[in-house]
């Protein structure tokens, strides 16, 4: 009894295979999903998705999305997803610093919103690399 996980972005299918367990960070906190979970629809925050395959955890950075869980089938729709192993640590760190600088410089409500989003995304990417255990 394993879960079938499907992570979809508009461009491509990022992940489409079976997993043992996932940990998802939603707007209302982190939830763990095991096989035979109840049917649920949830909004996923900009954060990290942890996938367990045979006692090995993988991380993926998700940039805000929606997840539907039902009947041992998990479908996650994201605008952008990156596997932790695909992210370059240097580049992610730099992006984080740039985003922080931009946020400090932001003027007006609109720019603040944009820079906030960018900052959260950059932070997620950095966490995805660091969280590989």
């Amino acid at each position, binding site marked *: 009894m394993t879960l079938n996980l499907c992570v*979809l*972005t*508009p*461009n*491509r*299918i990022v992940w489409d295979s079976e997993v043992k367990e996932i940990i998802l960070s*939603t*707007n*209302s906190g982190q*939830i763990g999903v095991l096989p035979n979970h*109840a*049917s*649920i*629809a*949830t*909004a*996923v*925050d900009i954060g990290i998705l942890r996938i367990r395959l045979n006692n090995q955890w993988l991380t993926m950075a998700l*940039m*805000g*999305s*929606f997840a*539907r869980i*039902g*009947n041992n089938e998990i*479908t996650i*729709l*994201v*605008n*952008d997803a990156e596997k932790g192993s695909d992210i370059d640590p240097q580049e992610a760190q730099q992006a984080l610093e740039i985003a922080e600088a931009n946020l400090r410089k932001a003027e*007006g*409500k*609109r*720019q603040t*919103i*944009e820079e906030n*989003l960018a900052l959260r995304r950059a932070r997620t990417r950095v966490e995805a690399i660091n969280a590989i255990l």
Partner: protein
Amino acid sequence: MYSSNLPTWVSSKPSNSNKNILLYQFNQNPFLQFSKRLPPKSLSQSPSPFTRIRCRLRELRKRIETVKSTQKITEAMKLVAAAKVRRAQEAVINLLYTINESLQCDDVDCPLTVIRPVKKVALVVITGDRGLCGSFNSAVIKKAESRISNLKGLGLDYTVISVGKKGNSYFSRKDDVSVERFVEGVGFRTAKEAQMIADDVFSLFVTEEVDKVELVYTKFVSLVKSDPVIRTLLSLSVRGEVFDVNGNCVDAVEDELFMLTTKEGKLAVERDTVRVEGGPISPLMQFEQDPVQILDAMMPLYLNSQILRALQESLASELAARMNAMSNATDNAVELKKNLSIVYNRERQAKITGEILEIVAGAEALT
């Protein structure tokens, strides 16, 4: 004093219009003298009558060579464009699946569905990055311009977000149009660009700087036809239907899938309607957060996918337009080459005849 060459142009349109030319350069001979009238595509002549015919032959030969290589280039471009159209379409397939996963919403308030009295409109104009694609870019820009004058006539304020190098260069030259931001992509359209545009549009709308966002892009109708259309992006209508500016429903349900294949050796487009059934939502399904939060999370996704779809459809139409333009250019190049060859052969034969006559006359004179 070596005579140089003439400019020659290969038009990529059927002969009655002269926009968009593929060029191959020759320089002008400053000492132009016409003694014999040749058809207009003929060459200039060098001053000395002795070298005249030889130079002309050489020039003719060169011209034939260049036309031949131009033809190869345009043919190659046509095939490359065809291959890219295929890629763009495959990207759209994935998109459609995600769109059709969205849930039905009843009367829930979401910042993106708010209908405000319209005072300012944002236009997102999607053009191409490169030229040589016929009237593709100018058609979109013309449509955008007409909408702008429309808005001006209604007394509404507007701002433009321009995507694509061609549109950017056009709008940066026009001083009376206020441009919000220029977006330039790198090669193939990715979700990251759509994300950037979506972010911009989202923040513009939510902070009430604009009250309505419209998308101006080209819809891919067939390999030879593409239509620039204007679509209202925000505010999103509740039932998930998408309306044109004139109130016509431009729904995603009737979407078609285009496949570029070959039929009897020629490229053809096959259409396929995508019918993705929305799976029944299990009645036992719980929602982790309240509907408002979930909708808040979904709307940006939906917005993103709409923009991405417009970008990719534009890309597909641009490539199809380029294919057509290059194929026309190739045909014209073939015809030009034929004409030049005929002139060349005539000249060559005349020269040989002249030499023979000289030799015969010389032999006569000696005997």
